[in-house]
């Protein structure tokens, strides 16, 4: 007979659930409101979402305070794990979401934002991501991942036009395949170690000194394939440009940040111990991934004719760049990952928001796609302020100092240097130069070409409302004055990463 189990409530540490529960409650509330009284304006839902995200953020602040005092907290039968990584990544997730949500208040009406389900799904998705990062249990990771992914597919499709359906289907199908890979990988890990908890897996593998190297590698391969998909590492990246193009610009910006940071956390947890325990094969493979992803994505970005697609490839490339942190695996590298991503959040969301703000419903004849380069020709003359801001974002993405991403870049390269990855550091640097070209291309269009006859500055602010402008303003300020924030950010991140043992 089974013995009844006595569990003390304190030992559960239910507070660890708080940050995830808040958005879930929010989502449920939104659905409830919609059921009770439909047809309410989207501002209500935006407000509510923002409110819950704020509360979430507050809960995270609280959790970070706890972490700073007590270190890593395990909760709810040790499934939840609130360590520095979890907190930092959740900050980014929630922060980016807060920047994203107001983008719903566009001037023009878009399908998804007119339905409260959108906001509910969005909040569920956030909760899913939060679960994903706040555990080292592969099951919960999987469930969290799927929760968020399924919501995300729907959110993309809800943009409701052919391209977005296509994008959603592509994303979904590949996601399903990736889910298969994930479960297979997890299965082998489980077969090897009898556990689905990363810490456990690590300790078992270390204890038997990687006897079954072949099996470990197979497991790693499937995990790599699965997360390679999420992180859009070449050759698992093929969805990225299409999905970004199909989704609304705002959603694309969001996608380039939040799902990836969540995946990065899992990858860090899963792979870094492997890399650090001397699995040479993995080191080589990740090295190759980093180099190939950075370079190939950069090369493809060069030839794009649509800004959004270009940015899609660019974010693939950035992901490759950041992947280097997993390879290097030092505290500095891991801190660099967070620093980079935090700064990337501002810049990339900003640039996608700039596309969003200029989104038209019906394309003029000279424009082949939503955001073709032609559209931005001569922008400096018709909408100087917008052009300057966009240029700042592009420069930041290219890594021109003193804009935000530069700091992430040097810290990351520095970490490569310090860990004696000389060639990698050089490749990372030179890739920035290649990347410079396509960012410049947009600047060239905006600043150096004559505007196309018949287009006026209104195009660039077709969608503008106060809230959009505010978000862009936030992003721009964050990008331009990152300099000031870098030091506190760095100290904060480093202490957290260090305290989590990474």
């Amino acid at each position, binding site marked *: 007979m*089974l013995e009844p189990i006595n569990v003390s409530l304190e030992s559960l540490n239910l507070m660890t*659930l708080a940050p995830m529960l808040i958005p879930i409650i929010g989502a449920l509330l939104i659905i409830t409101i919609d059921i009770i009284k439909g047809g309410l304006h989207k501002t209500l839902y935006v407000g509510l979402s923002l409110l819950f995200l704020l509360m979430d953020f507050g809960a995270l602040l609280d959790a970070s305070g706890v972490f700073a005092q007590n270190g890593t907290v395990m909760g709810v*039968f040790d499934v939840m794990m609130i360590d520095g990584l979890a907190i930092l990544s959740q900050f980014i997730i929630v922060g980016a979401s807060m920047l994203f949500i107001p983008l719903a208040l566009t001037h023009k009406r878009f399908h998804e934002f007119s339905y409260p389900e959108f906001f509910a799904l969005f909040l569920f998705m956030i909760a899913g991501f939060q679960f994903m990062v706040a555990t080292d249990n592969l099951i*919960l990771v999987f469930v969290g991942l799927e929760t968020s992914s399924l*919501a995300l597919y*729907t959110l993309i499709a809800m943009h409701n036009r052919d391209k977005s359906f296509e994008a959603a289907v592509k994303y979904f199908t590949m996601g399903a395949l990736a889910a298969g890979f994930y479960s297979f990988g997890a299965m082998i890990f489980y077969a090897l170690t009898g556990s689905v908890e990363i810490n456990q897996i690590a300790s078992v593998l270390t204890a038997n000194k990687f006897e079954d190297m072949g099996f470990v590698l197979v497991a790693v391969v499937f995990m790599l394939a699965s997360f390679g998909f999420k992180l859009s590492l070449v050759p698992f990246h093929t969805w990225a440009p299409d999905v970004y193009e199909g989704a609304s610009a705002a959603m694309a910006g969001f996608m380039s940040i939040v799902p990836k940071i969540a995946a990065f956390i899992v990858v860090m947890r899963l792979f870094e111990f492997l890399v650090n325990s001397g699995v040479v094969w993995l080191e080589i493979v990740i090295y190759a991934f980093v180099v190939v992803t950075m370079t190939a994505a950069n090369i493809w970005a060069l030839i794009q004719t649509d800004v959004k697609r270009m940015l899609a490839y660019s974010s693939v490339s950035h992901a490759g760049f950041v992947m280097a942190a997993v390879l290097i695996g030092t505290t500095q590298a891991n801190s660099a990952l967070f620093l980079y991503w935090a700064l990337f959040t501002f810049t990339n969301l900003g640039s996608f928001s700039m596309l969003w703000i200029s989104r038209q*419903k019906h394309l003029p004849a000279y424009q082949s796609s939503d955001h073709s380069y032609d559209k931005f020709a001569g922008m400096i003359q018709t909408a100087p302020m917008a052009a300057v801001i966009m240029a700042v974002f592009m420069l930041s993405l290219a890594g021109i100092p003193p804009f935000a991403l530069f700091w992430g870049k040097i810290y990351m390269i520095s970490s490569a240097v310090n860990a004696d990855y000389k060639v990698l550091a050089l490749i990372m640097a030179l890739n920035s130069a290649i990347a410079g070209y396509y960012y410049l291309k947009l600047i060239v269009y905006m600043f150096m070409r004559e505007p196309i006859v018949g287009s006026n500055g209104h195009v660039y602010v077709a969608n503008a409302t106060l809230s959009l402008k505010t978000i862009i303003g936030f992003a721009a300020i964050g990008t331009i004055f990152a300099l000031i924030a870098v030091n506190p950010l760095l100290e904060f991140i480093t202490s957290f990463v260090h305290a989590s043992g990474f």
Partner: protein
Amino acid sequence: MFEAVAFYLFAFLTIAMFFITVTTSQALYALTALAAGMIFISAFFFILGADFLGAVQIVVYSGAVMALYAFGMMFFDTTRDVKEKHGNKLIVSGLSILVAVLVVVIIAAPIVSTNMSASYPMTEGVGNTQEVGMVLFTKYLVPFEVAAVMLLVAMIAGIVLAGKKMDLSLTLMSDDDVRQVKEEENKKVLS
């Protein structure tokens, strides 16, 4: 002995069913084969003593999933032959062979798990369902709840996507059209 016979029988059957699923050009065959395969898989669960899992498998797959697929098939009218253009068979067959070879290689050696201890050992004389329940509602409580959320998400997603809401695309309509639609809706509400 019985175990071996059962294993090989069901292994053969599942493989055959799934093979049919991926090769047949008749959607209906594929669906049927898939459903059969699922059932056979549940047989493995029972063999392996995972009664609960077997039951869930049957309920969920044969009950829910297959019903959904069947519904979908009717909706899509894919009972007729689906013409699939297969561009490069070489890649597919090559990759399949490669996968198969790798499988053999991988499984050539048994998994050695010497210093492994069960985290949640099965207790003798206790029903599988009970054990599962015990673990599910302690250790895996959170995943369980999250799974619930996930199902909710899936439900909402399904409703949103398949429902009427997607029929009119606000994204594609110009602002004037949107306004018009709104007004009509309001009229309906009034009348």
